[in-house]
């Protein structure tokens, strides 16, 4: 009798667990993602873990969070004045700053000879299943840290050139929109194709900020404020592969 009760109980637990897993798997997608991007004399490799929730009755729309490692490498890349936004944009209202004009007279250039940085950021994801095998998505880094190699740089301001022997990556990253942003932040628009139940490949457009700080040289704005932050805003194309744990 006890044995029969135990079998019934285990069967119920197994059935409940199976139902629960089925429910979770249909509402959640979890995957890891590897991406390589390429641009002119620069490139990046990124690995991320993504946890998305599926929304709506047809579960086509996804929103979620994740973590991403981005390694960026370049050669002789021009990094421009990174801010503060009050010097680089015609107006500084968050989000509307995207449409603000550039105050180019306040831009100086730090040409980094061999930038190499590694960023670990929390990120946000949005996605939509457009067909059984096709999916479009967007993701963007929100907050994190960066470390990397110091490199020599050439600072150019009003035709005057100076050497900064050891510029280094800015260590703190924070998404605040436009030139309010701090540090190095990665974002992707992508189209993904499902190869098998767990494997997908994707093609992507990457917009990535990489920020370095000069050590011995500072830019001086007309009012005397100093700046040592310089940013490369890179537009790259890339390919990626995803492996699903849950979908």
């Amino acid at each position, binding site marked *: 009798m006890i044995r029969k009760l135990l079998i019934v109980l285990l069967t119920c637990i197994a059935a409940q667990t199976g139902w629960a897993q089925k429910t979770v798997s249909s509402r959640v997608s979890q995957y890891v993602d590897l991406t*390589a991007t*390429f*641009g*002119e*004399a*620069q*490139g990046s490799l990124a690995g991320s873990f993504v946890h998305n929730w599926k929304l709506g009755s047809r579960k086509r729309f996804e929103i979620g969070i994740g973590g991403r490692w981005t390694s960026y490498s370049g*050669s*002789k890349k021009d990094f421009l004045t990174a801010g503060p936004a009050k010097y680089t944009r015609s107006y500084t209202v968050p989000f509307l700053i995207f449409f603000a004009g550039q105050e180019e007279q306040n831009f100086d250039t730090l040409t980094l*000879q*061999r930038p190499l940085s590694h960023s670990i950021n929390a990120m946000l994801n949005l996605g939509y299943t457009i067909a059984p095998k096709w999916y479009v998505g967007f993701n963007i880094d929100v907050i994190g840290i960066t470390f990397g190699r110091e490199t*020599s740089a*050439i600072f150019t301001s009003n*035709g*005057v*050139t*100076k*050497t900064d*022997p050891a510029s280094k990556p800015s260590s703190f990253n924070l998404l605040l929109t436009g030139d309010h942003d701090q540090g190095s932040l990665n974002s992707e628009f992508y189209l993904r194709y499902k190869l098998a139940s767990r494997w997908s*490949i994707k093609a992507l457009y990457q917009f990535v900020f990489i920020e370095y700080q000069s050590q*011995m040289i500072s830019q001086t704005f007309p009012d005397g404020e100093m700046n040592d932050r310089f940013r490369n805003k890179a537009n790259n194309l890339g*390919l990626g*592969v995803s492996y699903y744990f849950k979908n």
Partner: protein
Amino acid sequence: MKNAINVFLIVFILSCKKETTPDTIINPPPPIDTTISTIRYTGNFQNGPWGTTSGTAIIIETNGKFQLRLEGFRVSSGPDLKVYLSKELQPLNFIRLGSLKALSGDQLYDIPATSNLMNYPYALIHCEKFNHLFGSAQLMMQ
């Protein structure tokens, strides 16, 4: 998966730019014509910490225009070699005259008109990518 990684590597390698300096100058400048040009500064190249350099650096003035001339010049091979006029032996404040045209032979570089040459007493051969000095010539007024 293996093919995908190979594609990544191939594209990544192809996206890299190779920078090389020719061994010898193809079109060397004619000798200095002292009837129209005046020698303002000269100096002999010495080896830097990262390269061997020999020859003479000469700043000439022709019709109010200044040029740096390298004569009997030779330098060891290196990446991303540039020609500077610098305030310091290890360049912190400098004028970039351009990429080195060749590892050996006479060559000529225009100097921007706004430059005050009194403030730039060194002609340098500098590896910009790695911030390594290959050679220097201290310029003396003639």
